């Protein structure tokens, strides 16, 4: 072929992405006795999971025996403002404890209770202290445990390898085509089943806690292969990212700071969250400082501090305080733990935060408050999947973790991501392996399809006088930040859609300099197609949903609307064009509905 050779690897299952979900999927598929290839953009162990801080939500009941899967399920649904896929939320709450204990059996060392069991910490929206954790570096412990367990399971790992397109044979996905980052050479993976575990889309925004990898690869691969996406309007802005200095703006400050006693204050020192308790959470939230402070020790007789309302509520509150001129000097809010907990406790519980502020901002968090503000953190929407099997709406394709939609509804609770990765990563590996075993006959990869993808991939090298791909990416980040942020209006969203359209024209002229070996300008040029695709999906879905709910706030439609509470916005691609549809949410069975009838 004109564009050069490619090597071919064949597996029963390939897993794309090696964070928590991808590793767990690969481990499970291998346990089923099928051949597994794990393909990841970065080195093994560097995926975004490594940055997760606070913990893994699981109703182990080690700290509060009253906790159980029903309470966790209920917290998750309420946190998501009831538009979660109920079955995913149920499976997640039921299976998370066993997934955590399994990590322990694979060598993970969580912080302990006094009697030697796994300690659990408080987090936003969770009724009981529920997060298994290791200080504030839980994601590192999780990925390292899965990584070191995984490398002994006979999985073939393809590191620094990027899949550009999925391949289809008739109505089935049968593999993927991409390139090695090191050499720029092409590589074809043939597989009976493909698991997407590629994470999120946060690199489309300017202020984000997400790394360069979060360019919406999996959502786009699925869409282009004919699968449905849902809920793409629901984007989580984590309330507490660093705001100063400018170069670190967006880096995450764990919710564990508030879980461990920290409180938000405005510039006059007031604990403003008491002014932002929504009707929906009034019954379970303390309305005065004394009760809020007592709650940390006595959850039976006190209601939860509003500092730990779900993330969407806290992010909006900080946004409002700043806009009203009550923010901190660099446009955030103060997060104070230094006046509330002893220095030793802070250093022991939050070592990474201590280190991060000390090294990057010259702030000693045991002596001074932090300055924090919202940062784009997570997308609740993603590939539409079957709850039990994680199967996408195209045969042979499965999705787990952040790339999948539905589990978290309109807003994810902190701690529910790591547990999601484990629960649905395992399910994806299991059902992809079973699908591969059942797969009858031959699958063929059409070489014409492959050659056309390869040609498109090399185009950035042959464009003369083209656009700077980094500049296009930066412009997109500005557009999304300004126009598709925490607070949205139809006019701004439509303007964003128009500007994204213009950026697509520019991206078609993006030019890579230099050769194919480890060339970030080429990689950035290629990533623009997925980044622009997910940005467009978020924007169009946000225009469609004319209400405010969770991670989607419309200034022109400020209330939550019950009619929308029964609807998913679905996006699919037909003949190269995006189509939006409003489709009914799966309906929760009566026995689970009764869980929502009690007072709080």
């Amino acid at each position: 072929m004109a564009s050069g050779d490619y090597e071919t690897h064949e597996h029963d299952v390939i897993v794309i992405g090696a964070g928590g979900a991808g590793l767990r999927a690969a481990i499970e598929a291998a346990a089923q006795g099928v051949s597994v290839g794990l393909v990841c953009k970065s080195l093994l162990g560097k995926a975004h999971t490594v940055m997760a801080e606070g913990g893994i939500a699981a109703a182990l009941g080690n700290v509060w025996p009253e906790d159980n899967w029903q309470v966790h399920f209920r917290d998750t649904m309420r946190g998501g403002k009831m538009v979660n896929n109920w079955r995913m939320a149920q499976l997640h709450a039921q299976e998370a404890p066993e997934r955590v204990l399994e990590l322990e059996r694979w060598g993970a060392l969580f912080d302990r209770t006094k009697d030697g069991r796994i300690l659990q910490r408080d987090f936003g929206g969770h009724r009981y202290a529920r997060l298994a954790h290791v200080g504030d570096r839980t994601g590192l412990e999780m990925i390292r445990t899965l990584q070191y367990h995984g490398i002994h399971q006979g999985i073939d790992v393809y590191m620094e390898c990027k899949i550009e397109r999925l391949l289809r044979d008739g109505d089935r996905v049968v593999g993927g085509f991409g390139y090695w980052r090191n050499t720029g050479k092409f590589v074809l993976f043939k597989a009976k089943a493909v698991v997407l575990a590629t994470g999120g889309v946060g690199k489309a925004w300017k202020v984000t806690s997400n790394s360069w990898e979060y360019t919406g690869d999996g959502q786009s691969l699925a869409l282009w292969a004919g699968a449905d996406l849902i809920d793409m309007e629901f984007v989580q802005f984590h309330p507490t990212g660093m705001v100063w200095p400018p170069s670190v703006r967006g880096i995450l400050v764990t919710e564990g700071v508030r879980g461990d006693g920290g409180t938000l204050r405005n510039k006059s020192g007031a604990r403003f969250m008491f002014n932002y308790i929504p009707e929906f959470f009034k019954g379970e939230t303390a309305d005065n400082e004394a009760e809020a402070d007592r709650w940390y020790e006595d959850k039976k007789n006190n209601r939860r501090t509003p500092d730990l309302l779900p993330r969407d509520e806290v992010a909006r509150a900080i946004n409002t305080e700043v806009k009203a001129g009550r923010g901190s000097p660099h446009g955030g809010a103060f997060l104070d733990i230094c006046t509330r907990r002893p220095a030793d406790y802070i250093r022991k519980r939050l070592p990474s935060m201590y280190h991060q502020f000390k090294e990057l901002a010259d702030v000693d968090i045991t002596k001074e408050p932090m300055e924090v503000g919202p940062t784009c953190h997570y997308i609740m929407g993603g590939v539409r999947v079957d709850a039990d099997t994680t199967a996408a709406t195209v045969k042979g394709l499965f999705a787990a973790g952040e790339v999948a939609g539905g589990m978290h509804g309109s807003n994810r609770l902190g701690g529910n991501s790591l547990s999601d990765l484990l629960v649905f990563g395992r399910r994806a590996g299991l059902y992809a392996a079973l699908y591969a075993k059942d797969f009858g006959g031959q699958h063929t990869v059409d070489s014409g399809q492959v050659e056309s993808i390869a040609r498109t991939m090399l185009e950035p090298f042959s464009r003369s006088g083209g656009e700077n791909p980094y500049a296009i990416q930066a412009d997109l980040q500005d557009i999304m930040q300004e126009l598709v942020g925490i607070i949205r209006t139809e006019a701004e969203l439509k303007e964003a859609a128009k500007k994204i359209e213009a950026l697509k024209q520019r991206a078609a002229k993006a030019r890579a300099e230099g050769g194919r070996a480890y060339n970030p300008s080429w990689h950035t040029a290629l990533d623009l197609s997925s980044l622009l695709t997910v940005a467009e999906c978020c924007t169009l879905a946000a225009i469609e949903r004319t209400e405010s709910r969770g991670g989607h706030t419309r200034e022109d439609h400020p209330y939550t609307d019950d009619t929308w509470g029964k609807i998913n916005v679905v996006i699919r691609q037909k003949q190269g064009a995006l189509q939006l549809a409003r489709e009914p949410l799966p309906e929760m069975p009566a026995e689970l509905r009764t869980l929502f009838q009690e007072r709080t």
Partner: protein
Amino acid sequence: MPTVAMQVFRGDGGGGEFKSYRVDFDEGMVVLDVIHRLQATQARDLACRWNCKAGKCGSCSAEINGKPRLMCMTRMNLFTPGETISVAPIRTFPLIRDLVTDVSYNYEKAKQIPPLRLKPPETDGTYRMMQEDIDRIQEFHKCIECFLCQDVCHVIRDHEELKKSFAGPRFFIKLAGLDMHPLDTRDRSEFVKGQAGVGLCNITKCCTEVCPEHIHITDNGIIPLKERMADGFDPIVWLLRKFRGQRKA
């Protein structure tokens, strides 16, 4: 806007050289920010590996003014105004391009380490571990696998012929962590002496000095491993350690 003079290594396995650039920089920037600005404005194909930009993933290791560091955690205000800053790839591993090296040696070593072999659970099917018994191992688990310790280790850096029989400081703390793990029942002493080659380490503590996570690699990891090897393997002492945990300071 102030500018800074940079010397950045450009090249590949076939050779290369430092190239001079002058880059704008803002308050609070780290070296990785400057490299990114350089990429976006002057050297689009400049290869550098990075992920989290928050000191948590260990991808952006480089030698900055000759010192092994994470680019994302090296603030520009560390340097004297007007000073030229040089950025080079970590030297111990084969160069791929510019600032990116082939660190597959480390992944091969990782795979050789005999994994956890679990003891039977308590009667309720779960495990108990006391915090004081895992404090030391949790310190080792802070490792972000930046491989800076491997980069400065004299055995790996200067003795190509020994690489085959030497695991390096990153994996000594991995081994020490497994050895001290309250749930583990595997004896790795042959491996530690043999394939991992702990005897080759002469405790210069270079690894500890460059660790961005401030892990006491030598004192808390390598020296206890060496002591164990010197003691010889005493199954009774070993069993007692497993059951009692590691309580000594």
